[in-house]
């Protein structure tokens, strides 16, 4: 109940049409030359002091990319992107991988402070009066434009055997692990944007949880695009070895700009026998203004491979930002008895376009998956759920449950549901439920007659609508998500 109250207060305290993370940080940055070429890729690879095989891997992806074309099947509409008019690498100037937080540019730390990210371990540790265990510990890796600027709690994680570091650093310190798993879930040939990412990715997080280890804290990466005309291409690779568990959180924001910025990330998850990864995202890239000017193009490939027996992947996402979202966090259920989950809240307002969903690919016996998707469209936005559930011939006893609900606010938005279901064996059981509803005037009037303002009434009804999914988020994120939901729906009624 406090959470609802909080949402209500949040709405009240913020002006309509205000993207709170829209500030820009003034720091000098070093960029690769504009445009994309083998030289630029060599430049990035050299900057990262990468091994030779990595450069070859990138170049191979680049050459393939040159022969690929952009996918056009999504229900989104935007002008052709000029890929030669972008910067593919931007790093804060004088950037030398910092040894400790004290070496990080204070301007950058200030940025993260503004975002409310507790980068400074001291701040967390300073809470001495808080009894042990009550304040959740979260280790943060912060990615600023193309480079990772700080990772916290390194020592404590190291003691547990957990590797959590920028992927560029992992390439130097744990090249064998990276080489073994990189591209094993999302191959360089996968799709236009993933291939582009493989060629030019600049940084991202690398996580390895050794066998039998339950990661002692939540891991989190915060992405921030700051530079103008810069694409952000981060690459995240998470490996949960046999019997291990990790919960990983991802958050993103960007300054408010008139031009569109490109974000094409790749996330790969590998889960071995009896291991579990819980991956949560709160995506709040700048969505553009009310008329659709500016905003992030978010073209992201996220996929997890349940490689081991009884392994599990759970994706939870709250998508409120970006001008265009093209994103389908998926699970390949390869190991016998493995399971995949996808919980999603996708909110679109203004002129936002969302085409998002998931793929549950059942390959192994007795694999199970569950999809709960809540789409909310307001303003003049379009919100599409696109999903695939498939069972391979050998996936006997595969089961899926899908529940896909859309809520419309106003009469100028659209909600679309495009489910694909393929069962190649007769022993698979798939269930699909879908509803589309409109926030009714009667419901709002009922709330208002009890004393709620119109905006509070909308927030209350929407929070009720997404409750099943919010409950899946780690507590800290759930509060943030709830605030975001009400902020993104401001001015959506009346």
């Amino acid at each position, binding site marked *: 109940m406090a959470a*609802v109250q909080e949402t209500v207060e949040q709405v009240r305290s913020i002006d309509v049409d205000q993207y709170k993370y829209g500030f820009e940080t003034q720091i000098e940055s070093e960029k690769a030359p504009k445009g994309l070429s083998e030289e630029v890729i060599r430049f990035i690879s050299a900057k990262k002091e990468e091994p030779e095989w990595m450069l070859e891997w990138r170049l191979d992806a680049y050459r393939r990319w040159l022969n690929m074309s952009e996918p056009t099947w999504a229900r989104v509409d935007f002008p052709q992107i000029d890929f030669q008019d972008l910067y593919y690498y931007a790093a804060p100037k004088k950037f030398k991988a910092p040894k400790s937080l004290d070496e990080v540019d204070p301007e950058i730390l200030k940025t993260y402070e503004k975002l409310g990210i507790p980068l400074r371990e001291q701040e967390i540790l300073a809470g001495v009066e808080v009894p042990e265990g009550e304040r959740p510990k979260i280790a943060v890796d912060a990615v600023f434009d193309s480079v990772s600027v700080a990772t916290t709690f390194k020592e404590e994680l190291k003691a547990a055997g957990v590797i959590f570091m920028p992927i560029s650093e992992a390439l130097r310190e744990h090249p064998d692990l990276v080489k073994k798993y990189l591209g094993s879930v999302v191959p360089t040939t996968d799709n236009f944007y993933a291939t582009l990412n493989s060629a030019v990715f600049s940084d991202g997080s690398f996580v390895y949880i050794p066998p039998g280890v339950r990661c002692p804290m939540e891991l989190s990466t915060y992405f921030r695009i700051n530079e103008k005309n810069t694409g952000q291409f981060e690459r995240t690779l998470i490996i949960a070895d046999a019997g291990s568990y990790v919960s990983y959180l991802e958050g993103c924001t960007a300054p408010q700009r008139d031009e569109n910025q490109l974000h094409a990330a790749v996330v790969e998850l590998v889960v071995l026998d009896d291991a579990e990864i819980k991956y949560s995202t709160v995506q709040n890239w700048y969505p553009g203004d009310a008329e659709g000017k500016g905003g992030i193009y978010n073209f992201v490939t996220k996929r997890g491979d349940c490689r081991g027996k009884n392994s599990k992947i759970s994706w939870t996402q709250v998508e409120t930002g970006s001008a265009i979202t093209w994103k389908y966090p998926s699970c390949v259920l390869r190991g016998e008895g493995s399971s995949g989950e996808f919980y999603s809240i996708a909110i679109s307002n203004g002129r936002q376009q969302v085409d998002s969903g998931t793929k549950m690919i059942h390959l192994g016996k007795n694999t199970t998956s569950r999809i709960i998707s809540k789409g909310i469209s307001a303003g003049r936005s379009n919100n599409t759920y696109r999903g695939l559930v498939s069972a391979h011939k050998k996936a006997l006893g595969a089961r899926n449950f899908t529940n896909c609900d859309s809520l419309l606010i106003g009469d100028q938005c659209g909600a679309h549901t495009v489910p694909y279901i393929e069962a190649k064996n007769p022993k698979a059981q798939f269930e699909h439920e879908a509803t589309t509803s409109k926030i009714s005037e009667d419901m709002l009037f009922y709330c*208002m007659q009890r004393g*709620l303002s*119109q905006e509070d009434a909308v927030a209350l009804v929407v929070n009720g609508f997404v409750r099943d999914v919010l409950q899946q988020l780690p507590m800290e994120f759930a509060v943030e998500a709830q605030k975001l939901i009400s902020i993104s729906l401001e001015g959506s009624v009346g």
Partner: protein
Amino acid sequence: MTPLLEIRDLHAEIAGGRKIINGMNLTINPGEVHAIMGPNGAGKSTLSYVLSGKPGYEVTGGEVIFRGVNLLELSPDERAAQGLFLCFQYPLEIPGVSNMAFLHTAANSQRKQRGEPELTSPELVRKVRELGKKLGIDTDMLKRPVNVGFSGGEKKRNETLQMMLLEPYLSILDEADSGLDIDALKVVSNGVNLMRSPERSMLVITHYQRLLDYIVPDVVHVFAAGRIVHTGGKELALELEATGYAQYQNEAA
């Protein structure tokens, strides 16, 4: 005595459509319980919507003064904060929002608007549980989403709970007895009677005399063709039960 509610020559219609309220006058003093009885389609429910400010109805003439302010200028939530409560004939369901959370949000929204201190969670929970006991509402019903899967009787008890928590000056009960069995009817009327006080008033809208056995009115009005055509004491309800509304309908036409 300053009236609590004064309706003067009120005219209203469904937006862009039919005229429903047609020159209505009514004065309710603090502490009084008024019953409005009338045939189906007389505009009784419309009256409750117009007073509470439901969108889709247009006031084309007259005025409504409630506690000294022009009620028609206020938004529905402002009217609620002023102390006007509508007990819905068909309460709405709000999936995913727990009953307790809804009560908390409603009570504090009103308090905030009035500049009063908000209730803390423990204060509210205590209060709601106390009231719940009087209405046979258990903890489980408070955890469930608002009205979702509630029986007709549970919904009406829930409306009564909201009313008792929000402590309005004027409660409009729109067909409070519809869908109730005799036991539920007793529980609901008992709750309403507990609310009676020298500063609180009720406007009870009903077809049947039955409800008025339990909530005994001070004044009974006959409502036909969009206005009050006859007014009497509580015995008028019994008379109507015997004679029906036909004579008044002719009178109104």
